[in-house]
């Protein structure tokens, strides 16, 4: 094999040009920059795009009201394309190059665990807004989404009262599914019920015929679903096709969390599914009416579907902005101290406060039934504590903690 010298000079010129591309520093000190990392393409863009829209909307609202500390807020957003190595690169870039004052983002637990240690290392406050399995213990992260102890604890007794005591669980085969399934088992047994069986499905499973037959044989009073993603929508569809609708009811703490699944099933398929989350588009209060109308008007062409993940992203920016205002600075420690006072915020989802011990949200939880693609709210529980994470985390005793505990029951 031979190479001519010229070939190589050209190749290497291209190479070095790439490597040493000059850093473009956007050193404008008249704006406050925050970072956004949501998947805008790839398999979970249906969650990421509305979250990003909610964040941009929050920034626009803040700026319209005059900005913060007399400065405008600018969002630097990247699309990690559902790719973990891009997540870690952009996180490093946001912290070191863009020098943002706070970061909002991460959807799956895998992506959060990729970027959380990075922001911890570089001391950039990080807000995580997705429901997840609980257990993060890190003073640098503010976790606003619901955890299983918040939703499962309300949903299980409620559903068991309605339908009966024999429960069959179908869950996604990953961390969130396993931990939520363990909580389901615990609450079913605490409430005097019986858990017949728990089955796990890889995230790409589309055919549920054999499981549906097994459920028919087991004859439970209700099915608890912790299924996740579009492939798993096949379960609900095939369930109806097997004539099981109306025979055995379904409850879920994962269905419709980002507000998309309820729109993807037809009303005949979805009606009657009982869910529990920290926010629904249908929550009735003044703040939510304002938020709902406002964001739809802000995106007239492509209004985002609203669900817990997108509303909580909006919350996160608002809580951060409140802390900046009160602290009079964008400094990390000053912001965290304000948030750690445990003050309560009135937001579209209701009242939200941050538990100083875990940095998780203490929030209102709703139970709703799906009716014609809308979540019809049945019940509201106020100020529900993240008791799962509280079992393993105490940031006042260990302020330097930097772990994701696996909560075992």
């Amino acid at each position, binding site marked *: *094999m*031979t*190479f*001519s*010298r*010229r*070939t*190589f*000079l*050209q*190749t*290497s010129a*291209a*190479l070095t040009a*790439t*490597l*040493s591309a000059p*850093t473009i520093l956007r050193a404008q000190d008249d704006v406050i920059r925050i970072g956004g990392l949501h998947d*805008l*393409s*790839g398999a979970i863009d249906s969650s990421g795009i509305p979250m990003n829209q909610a964040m941009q909307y929050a920034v626009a609202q803040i700026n319209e009201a005059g900005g913060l500390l007399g400065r405008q807020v600018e969002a630097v*957003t*990247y*699309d*990690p*394309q559902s*790719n*973990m*190595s*891009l997540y*870690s*690169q*952009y996180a*490093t*870039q946001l912290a*070191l*190059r863009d020098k943002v004052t706070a970061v909002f983002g991460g959807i*799956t*637990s*895998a992506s959060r*665990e*990729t970027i959380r*240690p990075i922001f911890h290392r570089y001391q950039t406050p990080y807000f995580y807004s997705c429901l997840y399995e609980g257990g993060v213990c890190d003073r640098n992260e503010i976790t606003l989404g619901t955890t299983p102890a918040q939703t499962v604890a309300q949903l299980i007794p409620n559903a068991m009262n309605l339908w009966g005591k024999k429960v069959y669980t179908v869950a996604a*085969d*990953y*961390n969130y*599914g*396993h931990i939520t399934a363990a909580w389901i088992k615990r609450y079913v047994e605490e409430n005097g019920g019986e858990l017949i069986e728990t089955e*796990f499905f*890889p*995230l790409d499973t589309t055919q549920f015929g054999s499981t549906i037959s097994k459920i028919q044989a087991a004859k439970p009073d209700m099915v608890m679903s912790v299924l996740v993603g579009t492939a798993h929508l096949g379960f609900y569809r095939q369930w109806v096709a097997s004539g099981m609708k109306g025979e055995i009811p379904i409850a879920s703490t994962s269905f419709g969390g980002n507000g998309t699944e309820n729109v993807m099933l037809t009303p005949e398929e979805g009606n009657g599914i009982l869910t529990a989350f920290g926010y629904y588009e249908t929550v009735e209060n003044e703040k939510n009416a304002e938020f709902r109308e406002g964001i739809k008007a802000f995106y007239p062409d492509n209004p985002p579907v609203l669900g817990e993940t997108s509303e909580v992203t909006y919350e996160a920016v608002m809580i951060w902005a409140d802390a900046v205002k009160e602290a009079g600075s964008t400094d990390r420690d000053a912001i965290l101290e304000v948030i750690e006072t445990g003050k309560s915020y009135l937001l579209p989802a209701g009242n939200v406060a941050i538990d100083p011990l875990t940095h998780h949200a203490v929030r209102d939880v709703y139970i709703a039934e799906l009716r014609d693609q809308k979540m019809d709210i049945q019940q509201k529980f106020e100020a529900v504590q993240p008791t799962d994470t509280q079992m393993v985390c105490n940031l006042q005793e260990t302020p330097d903690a930097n772990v*994701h505990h*696996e909560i*075992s029951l």
Partner: protein
Amino acid sequence: METSLRTDPGFWFMTALGLVLLFLGPLFWDLFQIMQITQYVVLSVYVLSLAYIWGFGGILSFGQAAFFGLGAYTFSVAAINMGETTFPFVLAFAIPAIFGAALGYFMFYGKLSDVYMGVVTMVVTLIFWKLINHTAGPEYAIGDARLGGFNGIPSVPVLNVPGDAQAWLDPGQMFQVFMAILTLLYVLLRILIASDFGRISMGIRENETRAALLGYDVRRHKVIMFALGAGIAGMAGGMWATYQTFIDPNVFSLEMSAKALIWTMAGGVGTLAGPIVAVVLLQYLSLKLGEMHILNNNFILGGIMMVLVLLVPKGGLPTLRDGIAALRVRGSVRRSGTPGKVAPDV
């Protein structure tokens, strides 16, 4: 050293470039650039594993990700259990190499045809991917290391100085170690390719039957090459794990296998430098695309791939080289065979 290698300016240039970057790079780059370039270095090691067996042995593997992932998981599990990283790093080479040898034995002694071989390697990767995704429960642990299923293994240890488990390398030092590995690997592979072993490999690539008739043990030869490629891919996986400090089942994904193929194709089959350049350019592109919000990124990447295959079928470096050769020769009859040529049945 063979004369052909000693007089090849490209070889000396690449080696020198590697050494210059190795020593001077960390002086000029900021932390972010170092992290970025370290990634290109790791993926370059990975792409060399395929560029070598495909370009210089005619073995097409759709399953380099199986070895990459195996190396990554081997390293992570071993490092978490042992508390140091030197021996795990050796394991990240050895275990995939042994597995590659076994799989190679199964395929080459079974006389699988090329297309089917591609599929077998792909299926093996898929099996790994399925099974590792299934390890979310607490019962799946090897020693202290939980496999973690879909979420993967967080906090994989950073490389430490051999013998001293507390002396972690900082990003600049890690870059230097990895760059040294890449440069050394390049030099060793070029020496291997220029050696008798390498000539036989190319003889087999061009015509397997002829090589066998000349008395070479084609099957054994292919198994050795394949195992070597597997080991290199595994080592890259180990580097990837410690570079990212976490690992998830995506290391076993079809996409990871495909990327190795795309980079090799784009850079030119039958070269080592071309695929490395392709890694840098295409990874940089996908990073830049994520910063801009023009069109859907899948749309752009897919489009680029199709255009590359249609317009630059031989790959970047050979096309460039041919173009320059054509300019220089200007219609004279001298035509050399394309080194990038792949046996028509591949």
